[in-house]
Structure formats: C-alpha cells, structure tokens
C-alpha cells in the first residue's frame, strides 16, 4: 500500500465517525469537550454554525451520528450525542450578541423561500447576513414548518422553536405569515434572483380499504391530525385508538392519543417489530407509555355501524424469503383478527405534492412526480429554482433539511456572483498538536468505562395528563459531564512521522486495542489479515506509513482506536503525535466563492 495521504481533508474526517455521519457535519467531539468544560454557550455556537437548530435537534434529531459512534464498536452503546446537544442549548448563557448581525448594507439580491421549515430557514440564515433580501412564505402563522406542526409539544416545547426560529428571523429575514404560495409561476414573475423550495412533504398517505369512506369521521390522517393537535384544533380522541403504521409519525400519534383521552392505544404494523421505520428510542418511549405494538397484521377493512367506526379487521401474515432472497409478507392462513376501536390514525407514510408548481416553467419532474434536483447543488432544471429538505428527495429528517439548506445557500450565493455552482468549496481544516507537557494533553485522554447514561424523564402519570408537558427532562450538568466523558475524542488524531520512528515497538505494545503493526508491506486485502489484530471492518481505513529504516511499514487500523494517546505517550521520539483535526464545512459567503 502507498503512504496514506493524511492531508486530504476526508481522510481524518472519516475517522471522526459521528461528524462524518452527520449530514451537516457537526464537529461533535469539539462541542462535547466544550460541554464537559461547562462552556455551554461555546458548545451551542459550534452547533449553531453547523446545524442551526441545536435546541430543536437536541430533542428530535434522528441521530445518524449515534449508530456511527466508535463507542458502538468498542462496547455496547454510543455516546448520547443528541441529548448532549440539548444540554448545550438548555444551559447556555445569552448568546444573542454572538449571532451574526443583520446586514448593514443589502447586496440588492432577492431570494424567495417557499415554506418556513428547517430547510428554508437554513438558507435564510446563511444568506441574510451576507446582504441578501430573504423572503420566507409560509401558510402557518409562525415559522418552523413541520417542526412546529408535526412534532408533539411534549417532545419539543414551543418556546424552543420560538427561540431558534427567532434567531434566524432576527437576522433581517422577512417572514410572510399565512401566505400559501399557489403558483410558482407568479412567484417567479416577481423577479426574485433565486427561489428556494423548502415546502416539505406535506401530504399524508391514505389507506384505501373497504369502510374508509363510510367511517371517515373517525379515521384521521396522521400528520394532519398531529398538526391539528399542535394548533389546538383537536383536543380529544376516543378511548380506544388504533394507530396504523410503524414510523416516527405513528409513534407521535400514539403518544399524543394517550394524552388526549386515549386509554387503550395500540400501534399495529404490517411488518415485523424489528423492521419498523421508527427509531428504536421512539419505540421504547411508546412502549414506556403502555402502548403495545402489534406486528405482522395487515389492515383489511374498517368495520362500521350506522356510519360509526367499530374497529379494524386484520389479516395475519408472516415474513418469508422468496427464491431471490427478497422478504415478502404472506398470509399465515389463520382467521382474520378484528380489533375494536373508536378512532384510527393512519400514519403509513407521507408524500410530496406540488400542485402549485406549473409544469411549463422549466422544472422537470420524474415519473414519481418528484422534481429533478441535482444532489450536489440542489438546483432544479430551472436555473433559478432550488429545492431542499423533504421537498427535494422525499421525507427525511430535520438534520438532512439543514444540510440541504447549507448546500443550496452556497449554490445561490455562487449563482448570484456569476460563478459555476457545480464547483463546490472545500472544508476548512485546522490542525494543531494537543501536547501540553510530557504526559499532558489538552483533552481528557483517560478512557471512561461508564455505560451510557439515561436521560431523566418526567413521571409518567404527570406526563400523560398534559400534552404540553415535556417528557424528557434532559441531562443536568453533572450527568452531562459524565456522559461527555464517554466521548473518545475521535477528532484528536494519531499522526505518525516515519522519519522520527526508531521502530522500538513501544506503541505496538501499549496500544490497548492492538491497532498498530509494523510489518512488510503488501496489498490492502493481504495486510488486513496480517495485523496484530485482524482488520475485518473494511469501512474503516488503514493508515499506512512507508519510509521506515527497516523497510517495513507502519499500519494502523483506524477501526477501534480509542484516541487514548498512549502510543504518543510511549513514543520516545515523538513519531506519534495527537493532533486535533477540526473540519468545518464551507458555508455561503466569500469563502465559498472562487478566489479568481
């Protein structure tokens, strides 16, 4: 193998698994260290720069970072990254004077943003301080989009949404409340320099089975119902409720039902419990609130009497693999099961819907009715129209919407400066040794063996009485400190200098994870089998350094490195050093443009 090019930003970025997995590439270990140091405001700002909504995401994020956390490969549970983010938001000082200021001078460019959700707000946040006039249109009275309308208040209080959307609107962003855009053509005619569509995936999928029409009064579409609950239009539900569907919306529906009079609330899914789309922790939360989840039941018919829903009939199925290894649900042949109920919430998915986009304005749609959007620039086939969030590639998550927003903002900024938007800016990388003394590092390199800490919850009896009472109480500073101590500081990289190495084996002997090997060189597949401990995880890189005196190579398997610095402490010549690689993605602004 050749020498690993550690100067390529992606190499060490990949080693920081959490940051690499985060769509917005939030520097996770950096803010966790700040939380441990009690610098909550600083931790908040690190988050705010990357993901815009730390308080909101700290409660609701889908956490792609956590399954990626190296801790999972070393012990059982990842660091509670998401809930630590909330700590930064909960305990920060007033950070308003650290936010960008509204632009003193406008640059004369006008951007229209359709929908006031996370994607549009991210674009506005990135562009408004640069002097752009950003106009956000939303049919709701307040900004936030699905964050406000679909996430129950017991998971995310309004105050948090108000605060974080307020930071963005405070940048001089114009918010046109209660204005639904009915025609993109008309909007384009208003001579905006660019239009960003962040209108989400607003249509809940229906379930067209017998009885649907007849019992319509007691059958509700999940996301519409959640939105009505959010805005106070719906305040109660029947005692017996069935929620159909296995995603996070279904979990929000069932838990909301429990708070609006539902006593016997069940979630019923077609497939197996393990195949459900809902995040494991959301399933746990539902079960904790005495909501059973029944699986392998396919809804067949809504039963009704005199126009009133009486229940749902289900066909029993099992999962079988066909000849091609595909998983199919086949009837078991057992008699159908009837589950009586008063109300049904249908949460079987949501879809995009663009009736307001004319088909003759240069925006191509694919056969599924989705706009054709470039995944790098987020531009549609109309050079002035950009898409992001759920509107771009279908329902995803807040953190994806934020990531899309940042990229779209870069595109719009480059477009308005007459640049090629396909040329994307590189991230900024800041490298610095963490050595403070002989055995002293600027980070806590002692590995904590602690198991993941649980977030304290409000007492169930109290929580179920009030739909606005937040269930999770969040870590207090002491718990946060303990949980933060579990972070392995994967951004503090082991950096090797061949010319200093005397091949004394000290690093090989001390490495607790047997990551380091000195051996004759070979091809990667061969080397992976010849290391001190076999490197069986091909998704993790081998760090290879040639030019040793004996002609061997140093090979370090990045897979389970604890970043404990013991190799560097044991190295007599300083051939190993621990260097912090802080990688920040380029956002809209002068830095993202070409220097020409």
């Amino acid at each position: 193998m050749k020498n690993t090019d550690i100067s390529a930003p992606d190499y060490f970025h990949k080693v920081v698994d959490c940051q690499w997995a985060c769509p917005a590439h939030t520097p996770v270990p950096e803010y966790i260290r700040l939380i441990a140091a009690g610098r909550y405001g600083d931790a908040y700002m690190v988050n705010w720069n990357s993901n815009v909504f730390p308080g909101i995401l700290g409660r609701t994020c889908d956490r792609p970072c956590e399954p990626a956390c190296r801790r999972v490969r070393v012990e059982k549970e990842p660091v509670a990254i998401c809930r630590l983010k909330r700590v930064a938001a909960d305990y920060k000082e007033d950070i308003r004077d650290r936010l960008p200021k509204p632009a003193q001078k406008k640059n004369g460019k006008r951007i229209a943003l359709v929908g006031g959700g996370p994607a549009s707000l991210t674009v506005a946040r990135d562009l408004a301080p640069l002097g752009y006039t950003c106009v956000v249109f939303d049919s709701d009275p307040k900004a936030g989009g699905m964050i406000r309308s679909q996430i129950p208040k017991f998971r995310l209080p309004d105050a948090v949404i108000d605060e974080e959307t307020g930071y963005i609107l405070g940048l001089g962003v114009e918010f046109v409340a209660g204005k639904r855009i009915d025609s993109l053509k008309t909007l384009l005619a208003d001579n905006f320099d660019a239009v960003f569509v962040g209108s989400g995936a607003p249509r809940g999928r229906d379930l067209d089975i017998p009885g649907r029409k007849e019992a319509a009064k007691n059958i509700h579409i999940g996301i519409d119902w959640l939105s009505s609950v959010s805005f106070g239009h719906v305040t109660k539900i029947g005692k017996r409720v069935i929620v159909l569907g296995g995603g996070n919306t279904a979990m929000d529906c069932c838990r909301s039902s429990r708070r609006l009079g539902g006593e016997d609330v069940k979630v019923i899914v077609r497939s197996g419990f393990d195949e459900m789309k809902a995040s494991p922790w959301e399933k746990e939360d539902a079960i904790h609130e005495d909501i059973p989840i029944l699986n392998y039941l396919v809804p067949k018919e809504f039963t009704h009497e005199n126009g009133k829903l009486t229940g749902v009939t289900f066909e029993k199925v099992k999962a079988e693999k066909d000849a091609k290894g595909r998983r199919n649900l086949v009837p078991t042949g057992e008699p159908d099961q009837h589950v009586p109920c008063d109300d049904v919430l249908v949460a079987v998915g949501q879809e995009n819907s663009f009736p307001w986009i004319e088909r003759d304005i240069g925006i191509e749609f694919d056969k599924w009715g989705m706009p054709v959007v470039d995944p790098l620039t987020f531009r549609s086939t109309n050079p002035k129209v950009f898409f992001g969030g759920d509107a771009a590639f279908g329902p995803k998550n807040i953190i994806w919407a934020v990531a899309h927003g940042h990229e779209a903002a870069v595109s719009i900024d480059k477009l308005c400066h007459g640049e090629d938007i396909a040329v994307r800016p590189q991230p900024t990388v800041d490298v610095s040794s963490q050595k403070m003394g002989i055995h002293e590092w600027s980070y806590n390199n002692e590995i904590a063996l602690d198991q993941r800490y649980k977030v304290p919850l409000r007492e169930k009896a109290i929580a179920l009485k009030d739909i606005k009472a937040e269930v999770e109480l969040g870590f207090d500073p002491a718990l946060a400190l303990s949980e933060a101590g579990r972070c392995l500081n994967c951004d503090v990289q082991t950096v090797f200098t061949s010319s200093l190495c005397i091949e004394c084996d000290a690093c090989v002997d001390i490495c607790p994870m047997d990551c380091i090997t000195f051996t004759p060189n070979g091809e990667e597949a061969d080397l992976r089998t010849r290391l001190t401990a076999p490197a069986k995880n091909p998704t993790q890189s081998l760090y290879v350094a040639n030019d040793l005196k004996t002609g061997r190579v140093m090979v370090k398997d990045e897979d389970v490195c604890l970043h404990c610095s013991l190799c560097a402490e044991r190295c007599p010549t300083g051939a190993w050093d621990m260097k912090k690689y802080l990688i920040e993605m380029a956002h809209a602004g002068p830095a993202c443009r070409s220097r020409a």
Partner: protein
Amino acid sequence: MTYLAKPKFHHPELPKNDLGYTHRDYEGTVSTLCAGCGHDSITGAVIQACFELSIEPHRVAKISGIGCSSKTPTYFLGNSHGFNSVHGRMPSVLTGANLANRDLIYLGVSGDGDSASIGLGQFAHSIRRGVNMVYIVENNGVYGLTKGQFSATADRGSKSKRGFINTDNSIDLAAMALQLGATFVARSFSGDKTQLVPIIKAAIEHKGAAFLDVISPCVAFNNHTGSTKSFDYVREHNEAVNRLDFISSRMPIEVKYEPGTVEVVEQHDGSKLALRKLAADYDLNDRTAALGFLQQQAAKGQVVTGLLYMQSDSDDLHSHLATVETPLNALGEKELCPGSAALEKINASLR
C-alpha cells in the same frame, strides 16, 4: 511511560487461547519505564509467548533482582507469583523456590548489571547447577537507573552518551552460559519479536537451565551513534543463525519450507522446534563450535542472534539430586518428618 492505566477495552476480534484468555489477560500493570524502553518490548514478547502457550498464569513464578529489567515482571503476568529479590540474588531465590516447588514455571528476569556485575557468581552457579528455569537477561549495556554508566556487558571501544570510550573488556553472558553448561542458550533482540517470541516459548518448554541474552536498547542512555547496543547498530550487525518456529507437542508439524532448509529438533516434552537455517553450516548441538562462532563474530563486530545451542536430552537439578517428584508443599507431615526410626536408618547407613 504513562501515568494512565491501559484502558480495559480491547479489540473485539482479539484471538483467544485454549484457556479462553486473550493476550490482554497476561498483562500486568502499566510500565513505568522510559518511553520506548526495549524492556517493554521484551515484556510484550513474554506476554505473547505465555498467551500462545496457553499457560495458566498461576503456574508461573517471576523472580527478579534490582534494576530497570528487574522491574519488568510487574508489567507482565499480573496474576502470577512474583518475587523481587535483592540485587544480583535472583538466581539463589529462584533455585530455592524451584527446589521447594518443582511444578511451577520459573522465569528469572535480570539485567546486565544484576547478572554480569553484582550477581555474576549467582548467575554462574545457577546455570552450572542446571536449575530448570528461563533465565532472561534484558541486556542494554548501560546502568540506566544511575544515568548511563557503562555496564559489564558494554563492548570495549563503544561510546557512552556523554562521549566516553569504554576501555574495559565486555562480558558475553551467552558465551559464559555455554561454557557453564546451560542446555539451552539463545540471543535475541527486543526489536525483533518475530524472533524473540518463539525463542521464549521454546525456552519455557525446555527442561533445564535455559539462558536468553536479549539485547534491549536503552532509549534514554544507550541509543546513540557509537553505541553497540542501539537499535540501529543491532539492526545493522544482527547475524541471525536461524529462525525458530515453535511447535507445541499437541500440534502436528506442517512442513511448509523448502526441503533442506529446515531442521526439526525435538525437546524432552515432545514439543518440536522447526529451525530455518540462515547460517548454512551452523550446528545447533555443538557447544564448542557455538562458543567459537560467537567469539569469531564478536571480533568482527557482529551480534549473533537466534537459538545458539540446545541439548535435546537435557535434565535439571532435580534429576541430579534425585529429589522427590512431589513439590514440598504438597507433601504431608508424615513424609516430611518420617520420625526417629527413619533417622536412625539413615545414620546407620552412613556409619
């Protein structure tokens, strides 16, 4: 050195031996020697050898004297017996322990100061008596704890870190061990675990006095140009007579070598050593030739490594003295104190 304990976490794919232990289970506490010390590599090699042999840690007694080297038993086999004795007196403590309990595996760990200066006499007598042990000298040619004076194994003409030239002749402990009748003599290098680990394994399985001279560079005081015990010097002048593959008695020999290049030697316990010969006419079983070869090569400035000599039909002090098979601690009062009638009988036989 580090102040931190090695984290308990280990690689999820770490191999386990027949006892279900990983090599991490054979570690001791974290080393307090200087960063990069060769001794720590020897510690690593001992851990690896004991792990690979599936030795039960409670069956090992580690005995040492005084010095950097003699600190190392703390850093390996944390669940074994240990005795950190007086300077240079490891061999007599080990001999006593061995006579009392012949069932343990004895690792005598010493250094060039401990064995070639203050303990030279003890070293010599334990070897000539054929005590069943592995006697490891972690040899760096320098007094590290007192900041780098030449030790008795420093080569004449080599240079100290402060620039002095050594005018005394050096003691070659491997040559002495050969001359004193050791039945297993090897020399290796801390920077070459692929050579060292099989040698330690073979030495552990050997019955009788097994002597290992392991060159172990002192990174703090003896790793400079002009030293003959530095990483660079040993790597440049290392003349390995053979490469050893240890094959335990339980495993069949799989011959994967070119015919004629491998010599298979059997030890008393049935374990086998496959030797890849590097020096074509080197005879492993010829004590006097080995002595001569060592001295010829030393005169050329070469460091001969590998298994230098082995006597296959070796025996040990217990068989010389015809001692009882059972360790003393396992004998009852009746056997240990047979009474006045038995004494009378012995006395009568001597009259």
